[in-house]
């Protein structure tokens, strides 16, 4: 077959293919935008997963969405209620500032532990760190997007 005819065919179909490739790329941009828009309402910054809980309250494996300010304690007004006998009424607070997590003990009787060590003041928190409030241990995970 004549090389010119062959290459003409290739170029012609390359043109059509590129037009559709462009459409595909645009469609991806549009889709991502729509996803982001629909995700805005239900998006969570992070989540806490219960790792250990001797009394089963809250149950191991339970997850809680963590907002910009999340309070933990026995008080029923807390964002995450921890009905553990060794937890204080207002035990700790987790905050999200800028792009980082922080945890602060709110003067609890038994203290708050991050990865097994007792904290003082405001301590930065990384994803995957474990917080202990009373006898309940919770792990900070990335939020669902």
């Amino acid at each position, binding site marked *: 077959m004549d090389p*010119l005819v062959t*290459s*003409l065919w290739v*170029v*012609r*179909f*390359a*043109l*059509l293919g*590129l*037009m*559709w*490739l*462009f*459409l595909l*790329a*645009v*469609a991806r*941009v*549009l889709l991502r*935008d*729509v996803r982001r*828009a629909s995700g805005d309402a239900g998006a969570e910054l992070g989540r806490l997963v219960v790792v250990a809980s001797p009394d089963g309250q809250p149950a191991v494996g339970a997850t809680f969405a963590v907002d910009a300010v999340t309070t933990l304690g026995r008080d029923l007004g807390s964002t995450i209620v921890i009905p553990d006998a060794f937890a204080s009424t207002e035990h700790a607070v987790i905050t999200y500032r800028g792009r980082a997590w922080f945890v602060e003990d709110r003067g609890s009787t038994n203290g708050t532990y991050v990865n097994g060590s007792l904290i003082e003041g405001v301590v930065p928190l990384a994803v995957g760190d474990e917080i202990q409030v009373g006898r309940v241990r919770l792990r900070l995970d990335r939020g669902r997007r």
Partner: protein
Amino acid sequence: MTAAAAVAPRGIARFRPRTRRRELILLAIVTITLGVGGLSLGMQRTGRPTVEGGTLLAIYVLALFAVHVAQSVAGRRTDQALLPTVGMLGGIGLLLMIRLPQDLVTQRFGGIELGLAQLQLAWLCLGLAIIGTLGIVVRSDAWLRLYKYTWAAIGVALLLLVFALGVDENGSRLTLVVGPFSGQPSELLKVVLVIFLAGYLAEYRPLLATERTSIGPLHVPPLPYLLPMLAMVGVSTGIVIIQKDLGAALLFYVIFLVLLYLATGRASWVALGLALGTIASICLYFLFPTVQERVAIWLDPFADPLGSGFQIVQALHAFARGGLFGVGLGAGLPEIAGRLPIPAVHTDFPLAALGEELGLAGVLAILALFLVVVARGLRIAAAAADTFRALLAAGLAIVVGAQAFVIAAGDLKLIPLTGITLPFISYGGSSLLVNSVVVGLLLALSDRGIEPPPPPRTRGAIMRPLRRSRG
């Protein structure tokens, strides 16, 4: 740190350059596509691997990237898919113009004579400049929002000017000639109409959506509030009908119905509007011989295949020759006795030419590109901060979409043909510039950081429903 130092970062932040990665990637694909298109055309024409019209394509791509860079430097968070999509459409149009005989349209500027593709390139670059400027500069919509009646008056005045001083071309008086330039103001009127309707509907929406008047068993919109709008739509549609610009009339009416539906959410009004539109069309059919001729051609173009039905018959043959994948750029459109089979191929029938040379796959891609523009516009409307902006964005998107539909369907003998342009692809300065204004405004509206809308004006007299007087 003084107060001045605290203020300075904010001032800089307004113009902080921001990379537009997605736009860059999409523009790269556009560049490659246009290059391959030029190569395809050059190989078909000369038999050697050359890029036909390479300089023109290069200038066009440079202009696209210039707009991209300008937007990145300005650093507004505007839409990144619109410019590449419109750039692709314009590029395909430019390829078509390079491919068509250059003496189809020529214009002299001083001693330089410009052919079809060069003129189209000049218009495209001007259009891109408009898109870039509007997308960067427009940070407030007050100038549109507050002066809607002024805009409406300017639009109608322009049309009347054409009516009085215009030049007849192809049996319709559409063109206004000023010195070496000529333009079709009815193109501009569609944008003005959207601005006016968006402003009016946004202001009276609460009333229109709740209040109703009854004429017998029929629930109709509250007439006193509808009248200014109906007057504007009636006047603009009436003038273009008298000018025999039926495509524009159809477009205006579609815009009106869509915006009315978007603002009020009442399907019954749209049904009423469609019924009235149908009655008006039937009246027009009996009043104007042009309409009768167009409908007759539409129903059976083969009745007079060498006379009135010639263009449509040739267009249908072109689509048929194109098949699934087309015959290749530059290989179609056989000339009959040294002339193109479709005389108005560069304005009214670019889709037929592209259908022959790029086939169904190409035409579907082009239609999908228009769909992307509309989808983007509606997305911007959905995210808009208030009613005016939402209606404006939706209306602007509908302008492009409806126009593309009316002419594409006309080319394909789906509806009677009306002589309007295919946005961004057809040759024509007025059409390109006005559609660029549309895209530029959409870009400006898509910025999340745009100045917040003014608080609604609480004018008791307007917000309170009219009381119907009894007996």
